[in-house]
């Protein structure tokens, strides 16, 4: 899967779960500060990404995923 395909898919998951428009979702967007997510949303997003990309995101790693770009990078590096 290419980086841009990952980016598209990640954005679509975020848009669906947080109810925001895809045009609002930028790599630098912070889940909490810009996209209005709370701690439960982040758990749900992490789980959805784990399932979509077949990666495991341990809790201590998930804590460092603060922006959309962080999520895309993590998946890029860890996907099988």
């Amino acid at each position, binding site marked *: 899967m290419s980086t841009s395909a990952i980016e598209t898919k990640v954005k679509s998951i975020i848009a669906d779960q*947080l*109810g925001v428009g895809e045009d609002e979702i930028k790599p630098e967007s912070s889940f909490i500060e810009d996209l*209005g997510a709370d701690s*439960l949303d982040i758990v*749900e997003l992490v789980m959805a990404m784990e399932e979509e990309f077949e990666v495991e995101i341990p809790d201590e790693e998930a804590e460092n995923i603060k922006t959309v770009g962080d999520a895309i990078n993590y998946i890029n590096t860890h996907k099988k």
Partner: protein
Amino acid sequence: MSNRRVVVTGTGIISALGTGTEKNWQAMLAGKSGIGLVSRFDPGKIDARIAGEVKDFEPEQFIDRREVRRMDLYAQYALAAAEMAVKESGLPIGPDAPHGYAPEKVGVIVGSGIGGISSLEEQHRKGLEKGFDRLSPFFIIQMIVNMAPGLISMRYNCKGPNWAPVSACATSAHAIGEAWKSIKLGETDAAIAGGAEAAITPLGLGGFSVMKALSTRNDDPAGASRPFDKDRDGFVMGEGAGMLVLEEMEAAKKRGAKILAELVGYGANSDAYHVTQPAPEGEGAARCMRLALQSAGMNPEEVGYINAHGTSTPFNDANETKAIKAVFGDHARKLAVSSTKSMTGHMLGAAGGAEGVVSALVLSRNMLPPTINQQTPDPDCDLDYVPNQAREARVNAVMSNSFGFGGTNAVLLFKRF
């Protein structure tokens, strides 16, 4: 109790008859049935294949799309009905609103008989399929019953008492009665009170069905809920929400609120008899009706209409009739009794809320909703059930009965204002 008086200033109903108080009221006056074949899932081999499903509810009209995803349907109904009631009343909260109530003095007492059972079913299925470490992080907040009052408090900044009674089919009558008490005692000055239910699911329908509690008149859904009729064969599951805004009378008057009715009495007690069957002769129900009258200092003769529990089960309707006769004596022959469950189905934990709304409307609109499907009289049910047709009547006081599994009873008493 104190001299403080409590009035109803806002209403909201969602039921199989539609979304909105006016829609429900007009459908009730027209004697419409909201019952149909279950469409939300395949009932498979469940004996009862009919229910009063809400058909026209669009949660996004009331709730942000993103929030909708995080809520079970029962909580969506609760929030939407609360929105209707708050809007109708114009309930002012906070220092910025003219005559605004202190947020700390506004309570939310909203319950549900069962809570987020569709979420529970969905997540259990997911757990079995993918593992119980893969549940939605929203599962618990979708399922728990006090999330409805919690969400309502967040929307309107109600910082007073916030909790959810769970007493089966008496749930929202208890909610309204406890909110009344709280205002009477001065703990609060206003409250949003009622209940919501969304239990027409495989577990809900299947569970009540195997108890033989439900009507199996599957070939005639509109005729299935027939309280007091000789051929009644069980209740029909309904769903939705019923909500009231209650205010301390002087404050409501001062702010120029439109007052629909006064809530003057509340009784709550227990049969202490059986898990599902009412006590013989409706002893507990009768005692509860008397408690409500006593709390209001009202003579039975003042009551002109009873919105009955009237579930359409053989047991309830005969026992409730006996209880009414025991409490009202000769006056039982003069007052009118009807069961709007004949049209909405049994909304379980939301029933008392919806019927509380109906009670307030009977007093403010001078019309009695009928009990539909009255075809064959039952000698054990021989009161005036306002058969099949709504009726114009100016009554001065209305009683609303709610009785629940577990032998719990709650009775509300409303008066013309």
